[in-house]
């Protein structure tokens, strides 16, 4: 009989990056890399688990922007082109490394992985959302939603209409894709401010996640800490708090698993390592070196000397680490059970892109974990939030504390010198959008199109990713550009609608470029 629960959550998100106006656009690679290194490997893990009849449970966010990109025809075609290039490159690599068998076997590994990626991609008719949906329909995966464009809610608190629009657009988008409403939401960056649960409730959302201190610093005190969900006062929306101990083991590159010396080194990529003329066709057309995804070294140690990667050793470590993770959860649950009158729930959320992209062996680790949890023990039961709530409907009522899972636990990552300038523009645009909705409650035709596009532009400008990139202080020009672009497009639409001078050709052009959420209704922004 199990003594406690484990809820693994993967948050899958990328900002909307799609540039039909350019033939080749560097930042679109974020998506292609994540498809090859994270989303497909996860799908392979799920497929094999189902095939082997392993009863696993996983919760996963697919953010509306990610879903939109994964189902976009242009990006699908470009991904194929991208993966074909990688296949070509790995053929060259196999030849080039003829006298270096330790590298040649890795080049062959990459070739196989890329070919398999292409096959699976085609198998799901190039739309990976349908693959994830399949596992949701099988009851193994619970897919939750996220804010429409990953707006960071604590910075939008003065414009609740925008928070509402972010939530409502996400919910209806989810419904159109999965055929039912989402039960849960991942608040972008776990950014929670008391009261926002009211907006979640309006949208029919049953639960969300916070970082540990969101629950622990709630009022009144949470009786079971983060080891049981709570209901938000007045709304009854459930909040699940992150367990930091299990988090650290996976997140930390220093004390966590991904830092193991046998694992693949993320920062050594042939895009940077190989001779320029040779690699040129596979990096940016302007000759800027980029990651290709072909990496030959293991972490090795703290110094610069890196040894060749050995997949077998890495695989063994992944198995060990999965066993260690589970063992630690068992100990944790046993300890907690000593003074809890109910079975503790351990919530372990991670960025999905940590698995595979950042931590190459992450999907393998997850695979081992699911198998061990399902077959080798019964102290811990893996569970989704919905299952937990239906089995444990009685929970404490508190008001969680404002918090995020970002750097230092609050809002500083998104509010500091390099990015604080954006908020006067974002807030002004939000207020103007509210004004437009009031002024034109039943627009039709061209005016309606312009108003819908205005909301798209507003939402796109609110992506927390832009502020995040600016906050990291490196390579910020794209993030700055996107923020400005959307604010300016919104501003022009705002003027044009009111002066009744909408330029249809220009509108069609930005509808074509920023084509996210085709069924959006501007009136949700109120």
């Amino acid at each position, binding site marked *: 009989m199990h003594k406690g629960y484990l809820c693994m959550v993967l948050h899958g998100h990328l900002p909307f990056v799609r540039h039909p106006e350019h033939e080749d656009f560097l930042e679109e690679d*974020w998506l292609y890399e994540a498809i090859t290194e994270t989303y497909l490997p996860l799908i392979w893990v799920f497929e094999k688990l189902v095939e082997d009849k392993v009863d696993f449970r996983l919760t996963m966010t697919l953010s509306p922007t990610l879903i939109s990109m994964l189902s976009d025809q242009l990006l699908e075609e470009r991904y194929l082109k991208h993966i074909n290039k990688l296949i070509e490159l790995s053929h*060259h690599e196999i030849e080039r490394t003829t*006298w270096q068998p330790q*590298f040649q076997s890795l080049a062959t590994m990459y070739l196989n992985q890329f070919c398999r990626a292409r096959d699976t991609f085609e198998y799901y008719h190039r739309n990976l959302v349908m693959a994830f949906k399949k596992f949701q329909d099988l009851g193994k995966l619970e897919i939750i939603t996220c804010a429409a464009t990953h707006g960071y809610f604590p910075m939008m608190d003065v414009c609740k209409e925008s928070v509402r629009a972010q939530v409502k657009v996400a919910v209806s988008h989810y419904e159109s894709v999965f055929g039912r409403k989402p039960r849960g939401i991942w608040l972008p960056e776990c950014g929670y401010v008391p009261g926002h649960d009211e907006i979640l409730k309006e949208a029919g959302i049953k639960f969300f996640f916070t970082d540990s201190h969101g629950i622990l610093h709630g009022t009144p005190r949470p009786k079971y800490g983060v080891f049981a969900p709570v209901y938000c006062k007045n709304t009854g929306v459930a909040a699940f708090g992150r*367990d930091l101990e299990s988090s650290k083991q996976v997140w930390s590159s220093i004390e966590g698993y991904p830092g193991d010396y046998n694992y693949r080194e993320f920062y050594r990529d042939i895009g940077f390592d190989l001779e320029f003329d040779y690699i040129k066709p596979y990096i940016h057309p302007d000759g800027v070196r980029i990651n290709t995804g072909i990496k030959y070294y293991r972490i090795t140690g703290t110094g610069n000397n890196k040894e060749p990667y050995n997949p077998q050793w890495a695989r063994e470590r992944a198995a060990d680490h999965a066993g260690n993770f589970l063992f630690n959860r068992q100990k944790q649950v046993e300890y907690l059970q000593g003074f809890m009158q109910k079975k503790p729930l351990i919530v372990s959320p991670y960025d999905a*892109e940590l698995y595979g992209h950042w931590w190459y062996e992450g999907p393998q680790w997850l695979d081992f974990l699911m198998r061990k949890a399902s077959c080798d023990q019964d102290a811990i039961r893996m569970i989704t939030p919905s299952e937990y709530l239906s089995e444990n409907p009685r929970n404490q009522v508190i008001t969680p504390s404002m918090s995020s899972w970002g750097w230092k636990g609050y809002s*500083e990552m998104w509010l500091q010198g390099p990015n604080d300038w954006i908020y006067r523009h974002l807030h002004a645009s939000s207020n103007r959008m509210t004004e437009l909705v009031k002024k034109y409650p039943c627009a039709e035709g061209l005016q309606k199109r312009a108003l819908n596009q205005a909301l798209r532009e507003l939402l796109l400008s609110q992506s927390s990713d832009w502020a995040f990139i600016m906050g990291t202080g490196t390579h910020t020009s794209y993030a700055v550009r996107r923020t400005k672009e959307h604010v*300016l497009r919104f501003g022009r639409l705002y003027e044009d609608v009111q002066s009744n001078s909408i330029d249809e050709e220009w509108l069609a052009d930005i509808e074509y470029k920023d084509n996210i959420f085709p069924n959006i209704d501007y009136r949700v922004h109120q």
Partner: protein
Amino acid sequence: MIRKIKDKIKKAASKKPNARKKIVKAGVRLESAQEARKEVHGFQEMVVEKAKFSHPEITRAHGRRSMPQELPGGYDQDKIVLMVRDPWWLHTYWEVCWATFERQKSELGDNFHKARRVLRVYDVSNIIFNGSNAHQHFDIHVNEYSSNWYIDAGGPGKSWCVDYGLLLPDGRFITIVRSNVVHTPIVGPSWITDEEWMIPEEMFARLYGMGFGLGQSSPVGKAWQERIKQALFSGAMASPGMASMASPVKKEVKQRKFWMWVDCELIVYGATEPDAKVTVQGRSINLRQDGTFTLRFALPDGKQTIPVKAVSADEIEERTVIPIVSRETKTSNLIKEVK
């Protein structure tokens, strides 16, 4: 108390975001700050999220990309917005129309020019603020070109409101714009425990500690609070906007970062009849349409014997060329003594 507030003001004044330039010069300082950051909550999450966007900058120099025009300088409104950065710090930005200042000017006459621009920060915890019932307030003097400010409110678990206005020489304060009210979160467990869900102090403490992954024996709660506080107030941990607070760098032996690496590749190329069959080291290769071929190999240390054999289409003629290549790598490193 007043001095304390003044100190705060001084600090706040030196924490303006435009201090960012300094950080570029103080490269060493930034590095140590980044080292220190690793200990802070959410740092790894940041590293991983950053890795999602792992790309070099494509600048205008690379052509094809242009920056959109600048955003408007203002929105022709009188407005001040207050936001919570963390339990201790607030951020505010404001905008006042030209016309509003003109009106003040004509009302106040000479006094307008003598007045100082001030942010008045009110503690409005648990009250409905009417402009005069705040528990306390403090002023921050800002110059007329400022339009945003980080405020060291220093009070978790409180409610705040801020006015932007004019402080006249006679001590009168004239509010130009008033902000929204915000609430800073508490930084420890709540003191409120409702009766139905009473929970023994010690048990909660253990849960609390485990929740933060601090283990069973750690000084629960306090450790966390101390850690965050230190992180926020020590210069080493400062965000770029707080660079000027950074503590002086200790003199340490500088870690040299000079480096070099060299590798060799070998290009084997040639030509034959386009319909010939060619093998290299026994492995058949494809010819280009004109019968030429190029192979490229990473060349490790040691001797490579590379037989290249071409067989004519009618299999009557055969030619073999065998380049033999050897590589030997020697290295030496020299670090000169620096006096």
